């Protein structure tokens, strides 16, 4: 009994020391990691709105599509959405740009591995221009035949983004 207690105590002390060490390193590296993430995010955002200034916004979301929201100072909003298309193992992560009235100005996929030549067409510039750009907050974006699964997923994500932008502009809620 005494032996067992000794063993437990020894392992406990070792774990405690390790825990404290890992925790203190984490408190140093965590802010740097967060900064790096933000910096890489801003690189993505600048591809959409070159030279603009961005501020991160806190938004409430029940849909599960919204990953983040940014205000483009004086120009509009960018919503980061995540949705699952045809490739269920790699979700689609995309940025949706809105102007200050809530009209869609662009869609940019950050990560997507949809079927080449089918699903990927949804993210091609030509399709983005005709399907998404210029749609208002009350419009539903189109689907693309031959890429139904992917474009439906994007449609749901954009709807969720439109709800967020509506509340940001102050139209609802």
């Amino acid at each position, binding site marked *: 009994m005494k032996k067992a207690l000794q063993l437990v105590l*020894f*392992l406990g002390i*070792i*774990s405690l020391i390790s825990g404290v060490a*890992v925790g203190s*390193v984490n408190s140093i*590296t965590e802010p*740097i990691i967060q900064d*790096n993430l933000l910096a890489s995010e801003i690189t993505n955002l600048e591809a959409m709105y070159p030279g603009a200034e961005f501020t991160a916004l806190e938004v409430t979301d029940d849909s599960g599509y919204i990953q983040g929201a940014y205000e483009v100072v004086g120009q509009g909003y960018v919503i980061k959405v995540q949705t699952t298309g045809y490739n269920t193992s790699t979700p689609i992560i995309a940025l949706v740009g809105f102007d200050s009235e809530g009209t869609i100005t662009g869609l940019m996929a950050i990560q997507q591995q949809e079927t080449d030549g089918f699903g990927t067409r949804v993210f091609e510039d030509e399709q983005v221009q005709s399907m998404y750009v210029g749609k208002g907050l009350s419009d539903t974006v189109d689907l693309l035949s031959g890429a139904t699964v992917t474009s439906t997923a994007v449609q749901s994500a954009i709807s969720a983004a439109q709800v967020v932008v509506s509340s940001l502009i102050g139209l609802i809620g």
Partner: protein
Amino acid sequence: MWNNFKNGFIKENPVFGLYLGMCSSLAISTSLNNAIGMGACVTLVLIASNVIVSAIRKITPDEIRIPVYIVVIASLVTVVEMVVHAFMPELYTSLGVFLGLIVVNCIILGRAEAFASKNGIVASAVDGLGMGLGYTFALLLISITREFLSTAGLHFYNPFNSEQLLFGFTIEALEPYTISLFSASVGAFLTFACFAAIFAILRNRSSKKEAK
């Protein structure tokens, strides 16, 4: 002590001699960058874990020595992982899950159990350095072969700033003849097998000499 250090390279090279830590060395040896980054991380963890295990070897109860080693190694790997994530994000992304998997890299637990738990601190540190460099050396051999055959060049970027090319060349005359197979996992196995064979020949030769 010099022999401990030297052993790690040819005779007891952890990868080609003892066949330890093969999983990670096959997976991440696609480029010189990955090999150097991974080699450095493993060497660091190996030295630190050997030193700690050796320092507490007299007070560690025999019954729970393996759990104690695991706790020590896991904490060290977590620390290294967090530091790499913070300061070398590019390397963190390209090593992916294999950085965290250093925890279960058998070289580290193997050296803790086989060497550090029986030897002094300095000898253990030297053993860690030798084994770590042996692992790095093996990774370098595989990754240089693979990167060269699949891209006709070699590139090494500054790990703290991925834009800055520290060293690199491409032989343009060979570019049409690159074998992209070698960047896939098949290439890893082929390269590994060839090097393992060469190391076996070297080992056999030196042991024959000793026998005579």
